[in-house]
């Protein structure tokens, strides 16, 4: 029975082998072998360039370390003595520093002007023209306001027109000089004493303070007529 079973399997195997006689077409062989040769040559160049990979990694790591550590080198703790070389090994002043010193001596005024411009640019200082314009504006506003105050006082009303710039300046002035001593509460109780305070402020060239006080005075005592 064993032989019979074995024969049956051999029969299947033999029958299969007799029928399975196909071979790969020559064209297919050529295509695969061409592909193999091409694939082999295609990989030669990348293999030659294999060294670039570790180099790239090394460069990246070096750059990362540099970025991380270089700022820390510049951060010298306060109180730390600066590194200095012995007298014999002192480093000579580089030519650029010598040139810089000579230039500074010859063009001190230019440098000063440049530094001033730099400060102006940074906002620490107002440019002269702007400063002058601002002062003129303030003076003009003060004059205008004074005229209005006088006119309104003559009419016995509050000034009808107040420019925005004036209002702003007054508000700023009020805010800045909130703690300044202008007219005391006692002097404000009486119109005349308040007016005397205003006059005193004018005499002290505190025009804005004086006018503000004057405005308040007119508001509080609209019928007030100062004694000449």
């Amino acid at each position, binding site marked *: 029975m064993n032989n019979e079973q074995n024969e049956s399997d051999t029969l299947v195997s033999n029958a299969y082998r*007799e029928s399975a006689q196909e071979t790969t077409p020559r064209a297919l062989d050529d295509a*695969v072998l061409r592909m193999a040769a091409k694939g*082999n040559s295609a990989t030669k160049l990348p293999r030659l360039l294999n060294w670039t990979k570790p180099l790239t990694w090394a460069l990246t790591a070096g750059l990362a370390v540099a970025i991380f550590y270089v700022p820390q080198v510049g951060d010298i703790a306060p109180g730390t003595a600066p590194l200095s070389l012995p007298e014999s090994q002192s480093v000579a002043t580089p030519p650029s520093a010598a040139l810089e010193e000579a230039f500074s001596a010859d063009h001190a005024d230019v440098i000063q002007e440049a530094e001033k411009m730099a400060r102006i640019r940074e906002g620490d200082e107002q440019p002269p023209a702007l400063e002058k314009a601002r002062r003129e504006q303030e003076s003009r506003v003060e004059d205008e306001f004074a005229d209005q105050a006088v006119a309104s006082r003559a009419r016995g009303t509050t000034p009808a027109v107040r420019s925005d710039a004036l209002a702003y300046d007054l508000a700023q002035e009020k805010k800045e000089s909130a703690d300044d001593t202008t007219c005391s509460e006692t002097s404000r109780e009486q119109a005349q004493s308040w007016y005397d305070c205003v006059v005193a402020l004018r005499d002290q060239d505190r025009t804005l303070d004086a006018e503000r006080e004057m405005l308040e005075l007119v508001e509080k005592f609209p019928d007030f007529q100062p004694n000449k």
Partner: protein
Amino acid sequence: MAVSRLAMTEKLAESRLSRPANLAYAGLMAHAPEDSALMLRYQDGDVAAFETLYRRHNDALYRYLLRMCKHRATAEDVFQEVWGKIIKARDTYRPTAKFTTFMYRVAHNCFIDHVRRNKRHANSTEFEPGLHAAPGDSPDMETERQLARERLNEALKELPDEQRDAFLLHEEAGLSVDDIAHVTGSNRETAKSRLRYAVKKLRAAVEEPQ
């Protein structure tokens, strides 16, 4: 009696399936370099080594794919795809397993991918294997053998893909049950069972009385 006959059949089938198939190139392999060595030589740029390797396996792989795909053109496409993948994988190839197992695993996966991509070909058959007469047979014997081969081919086509795959891997690639399991991604028992059923059905077809 019937039970003992069945048990005997299974035992014989298992003993047969455990041994490697009697391959046509087995004799040549005795002094020839190992497949893995050839692949490693190709890895180092030796195209001649690849050609040797290719000539050793091309026909068997081609027949395997012909019978799996059932279409000559499709089989040729998949065949090229398989070798293309092997060529591409040469840099990462490590001889951890038999080259044959590696190659047929690639082929199996390519076939599965092809089936998934082209479902319209799944149920149609275009390939008809040629039937060759054995020299020295009498006309009657030849006719009988030819009929047996025709029945075998018909039965092979009718087998489920998994059983046909197992049978062809055993016959064409000479893979053991363990290797078949590895190639097809199944466990050993499943692979053995598929192969046993395939052989049983084919044997029945070959022995079918006139």
